[in-house]
């Protein structure tokens, strides 16, 4: 089963709805890159609030996906990480290495739009960002 990727205006949204296999995670990574490439959309929010286990492999897939999207000129925000998942990851000596994160999908979308506005160098948006 593939994980759907939705378009919401100028960004993409995807949500992992249950515990997934390594293969599903890799397929999602490939799908995200393909969507970014084909849709000319620069940002994607990836909600992982339903993931109750993120082990070292999944953590690596997530952070690599973010870095790959960045290489394409886009941005990823990972949202909704379960607090217990954060505890286990840090105790294991892992994290998501510089990936933009947010507590909720809503906050993540906001953060992503701010970042994309900065990247695109729209002066009005920049000013808006500075005021916050």
């Amino acid at each position: 089963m593939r994980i759907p990727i939705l378009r919401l205006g100028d960004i993409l949204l995807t949500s992992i709805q249950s515990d997934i296999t390594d293969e599903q995670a890799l397929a999602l990574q490939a799908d995200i890159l393909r969507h970014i490439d084909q849709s000319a959309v620069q940002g994607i929010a990836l909600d992982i609030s339903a993931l109750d286990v993120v082990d070292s492999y999944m953590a690596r897939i997530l952070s690599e996906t973010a870095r790959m999207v960045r290489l394409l000129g886009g941005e990823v925000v990972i949202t909704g990480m379960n607090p217990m998942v954060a505890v286990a990851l840090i105790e294991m000596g892992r994290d998501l290495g510089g990936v933009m994160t947010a507590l909720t999908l809503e906050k993540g979308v906001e953060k992503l739009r701010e970042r994309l506005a900065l990247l695109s160098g729209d002066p009005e948006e920049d000013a808006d960002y500075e005021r916050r």
Partner: protein
Amino acid sequence: MNADDISIAVGVHLPEDVVRARQAGRDAARALGLGLADQTRLATAISEIARNALRYGGGGTCEIKGSQDGRYREIQVTVTDTGPGIPDVNQAMMPGFSTGNSLGMGLPGARRLVDAMDVVSRPGFTQVILVMRRRSQ
């Protein structure tokens, strides 16, 4: 063995089985009354070890046993495979080994999430035992 002791065996032959093994570990931890943090620690550690058995060992089994007496609640997870074995267990247990460019074995990470871990490996037999133990409530 008490009536409320737990014993589950999950065959690890497909990627989905890694998911089943970690969820079975979480269920066992929950059944023993362990908190969400411990449930997640155990499930994450099992995920690392079960993946190794599948990926490097060609598949194996994951046995989860939970027990409690007046003093302790304990979960023991035994993951066994009949693959080629870990060439150098001591090296595989060093954090640097798994965070390099290779896929890594995930052993040091798993070790930090549980109270004890034992690894025995030779060609044709690799067994990793994880133990999580908490005081009884």
